């Protein structure tokens, strides 16, 4: 996973709440067996509307998505994260995320940033007023900055997830350091527990 320490880029305002993962990437795009190429399916249905925000040229090349509350609800499809990263996003800012989406994002190097509704709205207002506004997502200092707009919004993220993201660490490798603990646990499992074999 690509480490995430701090990222500076332009941002896209997505003023919609309850953006479920079926909208982020519709099911018809989930048949691919690779992890790449999902960007073409990102918001596929919405992108057919020329006025959709991602179709507005002033936001070309933006790398930060600023969305309404309950972003990434619904299906567990990690393809939603892969679609966002494949399209070029490094961070999503919203007042609240679907639990599974947030977890998937942190496994795949996309930073989910929870900010209060007012801060999200201020960011959306700022990048709508001036799409060239530079937004900095600083995971090291846990703060989102848009200096030109006078925005400095601290965010919370647990130490462990922050460390993993900053180091770009693979969870499986971390867990396998404790393989002996897993084996010991397995020895104590009751014999009547079900097996599929």
């Amino acid at each position, binding site marked *: 996973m690509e480490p995430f320490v701090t990222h500076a880029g332009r941002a896209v305002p997505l*003023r*919609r*709440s*309850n953006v*479920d993962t*079926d*909208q982020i990437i*519709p*099911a*018809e795009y*989930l*048949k*691919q*067996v*690779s*992890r790449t190429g999902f960007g073409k399916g990102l918001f596929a*249905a919405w992108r057919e509307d020329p006025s959709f925000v991602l179709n507005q040229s002033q936001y070309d090349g933006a790398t930060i998505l600023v969305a*309404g*509350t*309950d972003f990434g*609800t*619904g*299906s*567990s*499809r*990690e*393809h939603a*994260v892969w679609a966002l990263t494949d399209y070029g996003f490094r961070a999503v800012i919203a007042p*609240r*995320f*679907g*639990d*599974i989406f947030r*977890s*998937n994002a942190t*496994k*795949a190097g996309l930073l989910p940033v929870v900010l209060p*509704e007012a801060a999200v709205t201020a960011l959306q207002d700022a990048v709508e007023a001036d799409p060239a506004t530079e937004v900095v997502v600083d995971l090291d200092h846990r703060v989102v900055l848009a200096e030109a707009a006078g925005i400095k919004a601290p965010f919370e993220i*647990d*130490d*462990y997830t922050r460390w993993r993201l900053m180091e770009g660490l693979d*969870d*499986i490798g*971390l*867990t*396998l350091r*404790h*393989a002996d*603990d*897993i084996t010991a*646990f*397995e020895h104590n499992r*009751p*014999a*009547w*527990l*079900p*097996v*599929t*074999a």
Partner: protein
Amino acid sequence: MNTAVSECETQAEGESVMGRTLAEKIWDAHVVRSAEGEPDLLYIDLHLLHEVTSPQAFDGLRAASRKVRRPDLSIATEDHNVPTTGITGPGVPLSGPGSPVTDPVSRIQVEALRKNCAEFGVRLHPMGDADQGIVHVIGPQLGLTQPGLTIVCGDSHTSTHGALGALAFGIGTSEVEHVLATQTLPQARPKTMAITVNGALPEGVTAKDLILAIIATIGTGGGQGYVLEYRGPAIRALTMAGRLTVCNMSIEAGARAGLVAPDDVTFGYLQGRPHAPSGAAWEAALDYWRTLPTDPDATFDHEVVLDAATLTPYVTWGTNPGQALPLAAFVPDPGSFADPAARAAAERALTYMDLVPGMALRDITVDTVFVGSCTNGRIEDLRAAASVLQGRRVAPSVRMLVVPGSMAVRAQAEAEGLDAVFTAAGAQWRSAGCSMCLGMNPDKLSAGERSASTSNRNFEGRQGKGGRTHLVSPEVAAATAVTGHLAAPADL
């Protein structure tokens, strides 16, 4: 293991002198490793797999030269993208003449699952197999889903299995790979929420109506960060099928997991199933399962209380499952929502759904009715729909698909003559799969089509691009098929 011992251990660690909830007991019994400032490492008892969210995980194993640690705790099925027609039986070909799979991309995905399961030694129930079906239908049916287990699957409706008192939750593909490689997951301990449902459901009101009402009450984000425990007399009175329906849609309230404490309904459901313990093991299991229910002095982080007696059949009018109202209600005016985000969402939903405020929900006409899915694809659901359709006809303007949740459900329904009721009424009788729940197999809505669907999500385009979905119970689905507009059996 017994409760007294566990409580003593808890006290010795100085964490709490209080009793524990069902979710906390299961969690504590599965912690492989706990360290300050880190998520707990949780052991996973059962890993369910399907074709859509697993191929990249198996590729990851191969790339790192890793094996599946516990193939004997893993099981796979083909459900999401397979067709539900032309399934002639076991060994139905995946390609060539006589294959029901016409989409080459779907074929590659199913082929990948078959290859991966063979290579890594994972049991697979392929298309046409007697035990094939929707992953969340076959787990309980085989008796693999048991109280007190931790169960994961790369599918958000894994919450279904909580109906038997298992801690079950959906995961992404990176986590699927992690479980395949280690049989564990690093997880932060969730908060707990009690959803207490007092009273009794009135005649004609179902588990589906109850969960739609719960989601409308707490909202699509209300359960985020929580494990829900459904409690109270109305939950106790539900059949296992009803509990599965309720727990299934926990994720629609934002919660990764929902639970019902195991009781005699649970034990009666499990006894004699292929993977349920038997003999002395059954007694040992029962002894353990009876320690699991939440202790009387345990506390939840949050509690919601509902009165079942006030409920009526519920239907959705919008594009998220929280946008639901009683069938007798009217399409709401977005201006009536105080919260600006809810107002904007309602405006958008009404535009997408092509509905106007003030319209009676009963006046909404549909062209498609879907009975099936991991929410309502069990034998009890098909019986409920058939009892409404018996001696009646599906309206000429409506196509109705009845899709059993598993091939075993299909066989049971045929043994009971339900298929004859459906076909005599003019409905299509299908083979098992996710079908029209999610628009990634041939069963889809076309743009502008409108369905009454027993599935779980009414998101924009969920059942096919441009399609419009109203979530309903099997009873309402069947009555709607007869009248051509949203209706309850009592309207017939």
